[in-house]
């Protein structure tokens, strides 16, 4: 009886261990971890649409190649809401890929033991051999797809992560594509904006000067006296004298109006009174 009991116990133990199948690192996870990266740990990239918008983003990566290799990649825009993270781990408990995105950076989307195409609920990870972006071809692309979801976890519908290059494309929720562009595109945009601003400022300055001058002239006109023997003459040949006080007042009011106009303050305009 005792032997039978021990035999049953041993059989039970064997069954339990035999059915235990520890998760393994998938080959797809390994591809991500082993990909040779062209970008340095912290670098700046640029994304642009087909019209005028150009975005400057900072991408950073850290990784380990020890027995349990891992990769942390993140990219954040300086001004827009693009904020994406990718975390690939491989350890004795199995590999997984975690994705997070703005505005829910602290709520990860986890793909356990991913085999591409992988799914996590409504989210997908799809592998592409290559992708044409503008005039460049990028290889070994991982596409994160959040298109088929009404979930508001991400403020984008997709991103394309190049295993050698980092993010190469982002797609907004309404389908607008932001593609990787060289730094020169961003620099051109800075130059264009500076020129537009200078043009707008000069127009505003010219209008302000014109208004100020018109007010100054009207003040002088209203305060001039006719005297004989002076330098200036009116159309009837009589002399016109402008006293220094009137000239100073006109200039002061003109300056006040010019400053108020350029600052866009209507109440300051009303303070420029005689």
């Amino acid at each position, binding site marked *: 009886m005792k032997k039978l009991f021990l035999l049953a116990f041993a059989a039970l133990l064997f069954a339990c261990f035999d059915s235990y199948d520890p998760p393994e690192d998938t080959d797809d996870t390994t591809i991500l971890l082993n990909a040779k990266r062209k970008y340095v740990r912290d670098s700046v990239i640029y994304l642009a649409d087909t019209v005028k918008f150009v975005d400057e983003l900072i991408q950073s990566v850290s990784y380990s190649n020890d027995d349990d290799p891992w990769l942390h990649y993140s990219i954040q825009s*300086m001004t827009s809401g693009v904020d994406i993270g990718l975390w690939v781990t491989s350890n004795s408990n199995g590999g997984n890929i975690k994705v997070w995105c703005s505005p829910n950076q602290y709520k990860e989307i986890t793909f356990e033991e991913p085999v591409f195409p992988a799914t996590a609920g409504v989210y997908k990870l799809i592998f592409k051999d290559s992708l044409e972006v503008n005039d460049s071809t990028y290889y070994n692309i991982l596409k994160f797809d959040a298109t088929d979801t009404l979930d508001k976890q991400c403020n984008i519908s997709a991103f394309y992560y190049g295993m050698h290059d980092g993010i190469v494309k982002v797609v907004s929720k309404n389908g607008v594509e932001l593609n990787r562009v060289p730094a020169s595109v961003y620099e051109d945009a800075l130059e264009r904006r500076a020129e537009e601003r200078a043009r707008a400022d000069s127009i505003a300055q010219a209008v302000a000067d014109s208004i100020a001058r018109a007010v100054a002239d009207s003040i002088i006109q209203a305060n001039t006296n006719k005297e004989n023997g002076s330098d200036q003459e009116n159309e009837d040949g009589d002399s016109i004298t402008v006293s220094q006080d009137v000239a100073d007042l006109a200039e002061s009011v003109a300056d006040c109006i010019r400053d108020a106009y350029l600052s866009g303050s209507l109440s300051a305009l009303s303070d420029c009174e005689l």
Partner: protein
Amino acid sequence: MKRMYSCVFILECTALALLCACADIDSSTQTYSERCHDDAKIKGYQADFGGYKKGKTIPFKHSDGYLFSLAVTDRNNYLDELCQKQLNTTLESAYPIYSISLSVKNPSFYYDSDDKEKHEIVEARFGQYVFSLVNPLAHKEARIVEKVGGKDSVYFGPDSLYFDEMEINGVTYKDVAVSYGSKYEDRDRKSSVESDAKLYYQTKKGILKIEMEDGSHIAINEKEDD
């Protein structure tokens, strides 16, 4: 014996009276959690800022010509586990892809009026930039007023933090303040530096305009087309 009992009784009463008198002092040593109360509601400038309600949309225009709307996608007022009142608001647009977070974090009690005043801030995060939005009225009261020609004249110049009026996309806004942003230098947002980014705002409409360091800006666009 009777006299002794009377003395003891008087002594006990005196001790009790002293104890009651010192009770106020004892109450001032209440712990933080004892002083915490469960009213999470944030009031005043911080609650009124922008009049943002979930589902509201505000029209904006990018300097590169894009017309878009910022939608209030989240508005949450609660008391956290540290007994702090929190009011978090999120404004988002589909394209350009913007996510602006506004956060208010106040203790549920203040030690004095100065302590209260320094907490009356709305923090705005826009990309890698963060702005501290002080009540515009505080800037108004801090302006330098000088006598010019016998009359009070308000000094304002390039460094002014307050404008009586400002026109933005054809609409005039009153009591406008400006905040200069700090810029995070790393992903963990542990260190920040000064930046040239500026955020113009008022209590009623909230964020009016954000000028970015790349020369672009987004601005509220409320003027109706003719």
